[in-house]
């Protein structure tokens, strides 16, 4: 079978189930393409030999009842994988090999998938361009020297470049949806509590959520079905009835009420984005949905709120990387000196910046003005959505205020970098599900995404809307394999 790597997940599963394709053939194809694509720098750790062995073993006694039978895939390097180095994109975990497996990845292996390697990401998932990774920039397969988005930049690049048929990322403020949007792929951030956080290197505990990334909506639905589970090992995991998202997927969205929030028309938003949004509105109308103008009045406070809450939690979550127990340690004169040297050398600039912001907003005298106020605003933002959902079933917005930018373009301007998350962070603050789907190109031919935000636990609904829109949009990614010599 040729063009294996061009197949979607659904096609691969079907072909393996029909015995037209073996796991070994599929794995070999993706491994070979990955090996030819080193210039993208999508991988931090490769595990190809093991992957090929596992595929061989799968083929000897294939269990075709599984949802991901012998499917090879790479995952973001924020998920702890047993016996495979897990770095979180940081020097401080450069040598860290977990003895345990995250619940989300375990769910994937339980359904028959095979790990090919660990994908690059911003250090501790802090970034919007994958430029904060200790392991270097990732190239967007769309164009040379273009960022793939972040923090799940290795993941978006690998899916877009077809180095892996599907992958998983994590999304704290847009880290799945923004890179999906930048690479012309589909990314879902599930409801907070849908996917277990057990075994995922923590960035901001109250915002972090794992989710699927794929080339189309159906694949995304299937992977979501696999990774979402109630987990007693995560106290914030929620025990709700989970759908079989891929089976229940439908393009029939007639009569659905779609909200258009006026506050998302931000100053200085490029006309291309405005036009894309209008096109999106037309598409859902074509599908028989009803458009309703809504207001999310506290939207403008979302970004500052996010950049208080997330760093506050991160400053505490990252305290454990102290050189004492595992990971990188710099020698010091005494304990304090060792801490200072370890953390100064082990963490990159952006991580240090956020630890400092977080420490500041939690310190006595500033706590009430920053952290406590941010928590109150967060509640108001959630209330905005609750109000809106009395009138609508879902909300349609652009995924990002621009298309992918050049590597290095924003590295010296953190605020401009943070502004990239403007449409995605309110969703994390409210704990809601949202999906980004590719919806068009800008004048440079770079992909642009639209975001559909759902009610809590209503992943099925936004997957259905995305599925219906996907057919109308009929998006084609222009990828020329420029990096393969």
């Amino acid at each position, binding site marked *: 079978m040729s063009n294996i790597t061009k197949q979607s997940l659904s096609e691969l599963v079907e072909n393996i189930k029909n015995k037209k394709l073996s796991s070994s053939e599929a794995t070999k194809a993706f491994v070979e393409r990955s090996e030819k694509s080193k210039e993208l720098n999508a991988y931090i750790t490769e595990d190809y030999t093991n992957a090929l062995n596992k595929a061989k073993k799968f083929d000897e006694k294939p269990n075709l009842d599984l949802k991901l039978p012998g499917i090879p895939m790479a995952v973001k390097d924020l998920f702890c994988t047993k016996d495979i180095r897990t770095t979180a994109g940081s020097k401080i975990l450069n040598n860290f090999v*977990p003895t345990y497996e995250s619940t989300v990845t375990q769910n994937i292996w339980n359904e028959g998938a095979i790990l090919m390697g660990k994908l690059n990401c911003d250090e501790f998932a802090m970034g919007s361009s994958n430029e904060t990774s200790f392991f270097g920039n990732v190239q967007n397969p769309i164009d040379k020297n273009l960022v793939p988005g972040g923090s799940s930049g290795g993941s978006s690049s690998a899916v877009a470049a077809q180095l892996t048929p599907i992958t998983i990322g994590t999304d704290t403020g847009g880290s799945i949806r923004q890179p999906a949007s930048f690479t012309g792929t589909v990314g879902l951030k599930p409801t907070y509590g849908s996917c277990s956080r*057990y075994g*995922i290197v923590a960035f901001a505990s109250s915002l972090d959520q794992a989710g699927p990334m794929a080339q189309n909506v159906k694949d995304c639905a299937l992977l979501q079905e696999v990774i979402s589970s109630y987990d007693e090992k995560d*106290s914030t995991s929620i025990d709700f009835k989970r759908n079989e998202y891929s089976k229940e997927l439908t393009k029939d969205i007639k009569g659905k009420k779609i909200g258009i929030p006026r506050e998302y028309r931000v100053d200085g938003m490029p006309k291309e984005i405005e036009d894309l949004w209008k096109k999106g509105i037309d598409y859902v109308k074509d599908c028989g949905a009803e458009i309703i103008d809504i207001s999310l009045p506290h939207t403008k406070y979302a970004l500052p709120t996010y950049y208080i809450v997330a760093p506050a939690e991160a400053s505490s979550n990252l305290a454990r990387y102290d050189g004492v127990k595992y990971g990188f340690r710099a020698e010091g004169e005494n304990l304090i000196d060792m801490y200072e040297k370890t953390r100064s050398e082990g963490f990159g600039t952006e991580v240090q910046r956020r630890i400092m912001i977080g420490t500041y907003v939690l310190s006595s005298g500033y706590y009430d003005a920053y952290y406590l106020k941010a928590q109150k605003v967060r509640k108001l933002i959630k209330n905005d959505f609750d109000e809106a959902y009395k009138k609508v079933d879902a909300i349609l917005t652009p995924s990002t205020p621009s298309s992918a930018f050049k590597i290095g373009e924003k590295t010296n301007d953190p605020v401009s970098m943070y502004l990239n998350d403007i449409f995605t962070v309110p969703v994390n603050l409210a704990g809601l599900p949202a999906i980004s789907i590719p919806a068009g190109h800008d004048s440079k031919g770079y992909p642009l995404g639209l975001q559909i935000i759902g009610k809590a636990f209503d992943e099925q609904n936004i997957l259905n809307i995305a599925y219906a829109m996907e057919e109308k949009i009929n998006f084609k990614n222009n990828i020329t394999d420029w990096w393969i010599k």
Partner: protein
Amino acid sequence: MSKNKPEYLINRQDNQYEVVIGLEVHAQVTSESKLFSTSATKFGAEPNTQVSLVDAAFPGMLPVINEYCVKQAIKTGIGLKAKINKRSVFDRKNYFYADLPQGYQISQFKDPIVGQGKVILDMPEGQKEVGIERLHLEQDAGKSIHDLDPKNTFVDLNRSGVALMEIVSKPDLRSPDEVNAYIKKLRSIMRYLGTCDGNMQEGSLRADVNVSVRKKGSKEFGTRCEIKNVNSIKFMQMAIEYEANRQVDLIEEGQTIDQETRLFDTKKNETRSMRSKEDAHDYRYFPDPDLLPLEVSDDFIKNLKSEIPELPDEKKKRFIEKFKLSPYEANILVSDIETSNYFENVIKKSDVKLATNWIIGELFAALNEKNLEITESPISAGNLSKLINLIKDGTISGKIAKTVFEQMMQGDKDPKKIVEEKGLKQESDPKALEALIDKVIDDNRDKANEYKSGKVKLFGFFVGQVMKVSAGKANPQLVNEILKKKL
């Protein structure tokens, strides 16, 4: 009860100072596993053998609350007659130290699980109520070992994550004696409840002591100093005494007291500054986003209430009313759950008055001498009960009983068997006693004649002789009666 309270005051030339003390007691929750992980909590295990990935703060590891520890904390709250908060919140207390793997301690800051309560102290001058400010759950840290190597510090994480209850008293204590009584009462309540074993040697109970002084009669509190982590009652008392005098001396010299944290040096018997208020850590408390607020229902609390055993105060009342014990006796017998259990087992089948005397007298003295706890007593409650019945029914005299008791202390043996084997049974057969007495009178004819001629004091001599000849087994009452007749 007397109202004349002997006050604990510190005297200087013209001034008298009152000492104000508040305690923050850290009590280790009795539980098989830790507060947020399933690791064991056994004391004395090899270093780092009871450490899970959660306790060692590996990446991606998450805390999951141990329901049993929550129940233990609520039970303790009920025992302290305190308000149980149906909603409480776990916060992170952030600071760096080698034996704190997470870089923060999970504790409860603004919303503790237990609110205000009280503890009643039985002081010699009467009862005293001490207010409880709050009780909250928190994780213990690991242990840094500095003396194994000249250059390196070793870390043992066995204790990391073990559940502690921090019990904060109001500043209601006024003397080292009250502190002693307070700790003992708290310990007793928790041991009754089975929520903390109170073992101070093993560190299950330690306290931070807040001390301030003020001129007698003053209503204002003085500036307080906190003495950290004192692990015995004796050291607490010594530390308070030293610290209160230090503060008084400063005031007398016209100086001010700095609010600070101090350490008690047990070797030099002095407190010294650890860090001042300016150097105090900024712990950056905030609600732990890995844990949801802890919510318990009315039914949950109700069920726990139904599991609460009779506590020392109630038991004391019952002992006094039902068994007619004196408050002094009742206090001693209820002070410890094991002692009261022992007592109640003994009196199941024997006389209360005798049992009380024997336990408080002979048994406590014997245990003290051998440095044993009541649970380690060589004499079981059942056998002590038998011994008391042998006295009561006249089988042996009180004097012989002491001999039998000594035998029993050598190893728990049925007192009846000891009496039989050693032939210690009291001689109460009048005929046998008559024969014995006749012989004694015969052997001491001259003294008998002197008695008859009026030297009545010699009666005692004859009793003594009879007891001697009978090896102490003669029933003293019968001996008296028969002797009177015969002489």
